[in-house]
């Protein structure tokens, strides 16, 4: 394991329920880096993330974490039953106490400060995702794992959340592992993409992955159309204020068409 890696998977595989969920994954996440996992359903994205989190043990290969690594996790599904009276404020301290100032800052940054006292079960899908991300952020993690963080969020909200995730990276200098099946916006913020399909199908910089033949054959035409969107969003990423809408409004309009 190299000195700077937060987590490292070496030829890791998980055998479960009579078949290999994923096999032969090599992955290292460094500080200040965003790595995105993409791939079709059942391609082993969540399994790979759980290996990195240490929740699953590899059947073969190895998964190592840096010593005393502070982890924060934004799970894919979190169902809060009505029988559980839990408001956002209490939820922020779920796995450990956090200074009130950090909680307030994180809620503010995620744009959900006004929901501070709301019951979790009363939040909409998008609000809930923001609260989940705020909670992870308030923990000030070294390593942050997000499993499809923008699900149930509308297009504008999606852009804002990705913006927030890159702000978290810049502020905390943490390593981020993100799962997404939504390619075009992800690629704008990410440093490295790992495309999974039961194994690592291809990996590298977003551009390299999007242009690789493996990626095209896996995602077909839709993948190629996403490639166009990616280039578009990439242009915007480099604007200093991060406000995509202000730059090429007409171009963005066309970019919306899916």
């Amino acid at each position: 394991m190299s000195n700077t890696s937060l987590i490292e998977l070496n030829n890791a595989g998980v055998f479960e329920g009579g078949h290999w969920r994923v096999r032969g994954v090599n992955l290292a996440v460094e500080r200040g880096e965003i790595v995105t996992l993409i791939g079709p359903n059942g391609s082993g994205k969540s399994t790979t993330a759980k290996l990195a989190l240490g929740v699953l043990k590899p059947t073969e290969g190895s998964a190592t974490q840096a010593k005393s690594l502070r982890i924060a996790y934004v799970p894919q599904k979190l169902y809060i039953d009505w029988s559980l009276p839990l408001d956002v404020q209490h939820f922020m301290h779920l796995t450990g106490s956090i200074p009130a100032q950090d909680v307030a800052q994180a809620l503010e940054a995620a744009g959900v400060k006004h929901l501070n006292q709301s019951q979790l079960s009363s939040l909409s899908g998008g609000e809930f995702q923001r609260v989940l991300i705020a909670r992870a952020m308030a923990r000030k993690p070294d390593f942050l794992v997000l499993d499809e963080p923008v699900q149930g969020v509308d297009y504008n909200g999606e852009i804002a959340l990705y913006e927030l995730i890159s702000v978290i990276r810049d502020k905390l200098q943490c390593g981020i592992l993100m799962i997404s099946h939504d390619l075009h916006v992800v690629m704008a913020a990410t440093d490295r993409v790992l495309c999974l399909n039961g194994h690592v199908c291809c990996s590298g910089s977003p551009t390299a992955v999007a242009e690789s033949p493996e990626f095209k054959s896996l995602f077909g035409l839709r993948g190629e159309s996403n490639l166009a969107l990616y280039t578009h969003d990439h242009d915007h990423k480099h604007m200093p204020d991060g406000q995509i809408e202000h730059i090429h409004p007409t171009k963005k309009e066309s970019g919306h068409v899916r």
Partner: protein
Amino acid sequence: MFDDFFVRALLAGIGVALVAGPLGCFVVWRRLAYFGDTLSHGALLGVAVGLLLQIHLPTAVFIVCTFIALALFTIRRRSMISSDALLGLLSHSALAIGLVVLGFLTWVRVDLMGLLFGDILAVSENDLLLIWIGALCTLSILTWIWKPLFAATVSQELAEAEGLEPRRTELIFMILMAAVIAISMKIVGVLLITSLLIIPAAASRRFATSPAQMLIVASVIGVLSVIAGLLSSLTWDTPSGPSIVVAALICFLVSLTPFVNLFRSNLGASRNIGHE
């Protein structure tokens, strides 16, 4: 009016209710009602084993229940049978085996009604001591594991990923369940133990805006139910265990009325709807 036996019954019931409330909240949150039923039916098997081996009954119940809890804990991870069916199978098998074994023990006279529905008015001073020691131990352990247990209740994966140990905590929780069943069997009986766990917890939901509040309110409602149940049992000569359960049910029904909103702090009531 307050005879000795009645005071003992009251103290015993209050001791059990204090701990059953908070534990019951976790049973409700984690959807373990059926699991609780299985354990409490297993208690009858515990009684049979205890009588057979001639050991202290609550200890025998505690051991048998712990054993069933651990078995369920292990099986649930690898079983192909849905846990619902599995619990049903174990629950009624334990009850049936217990009754069959008791049937073979022709040399002991067993008060079956007392076992099934409780015999709170026959609580001895030793029972009382056991109940209070058990309740206080359970409450302190619950306070100790409260944070990781609650985190694991919200999301097992999240708790595990962020460095808590949900499995160990879960195991401790199940042993606590076994302990509470062992001490409350005498109060409400095998068939009604789960109700003492679940009804006060469910009744407390609408009074609470935070998890800790709900635990406390559940204890209070449990204690009130015990007092009301026992008083009515004394007044109308109704069976004590079922009277307590009926009192708890009335508390639950009251909690459903809009009336309750008056008691609730209006924390969390304000929320900007439509704010993006």
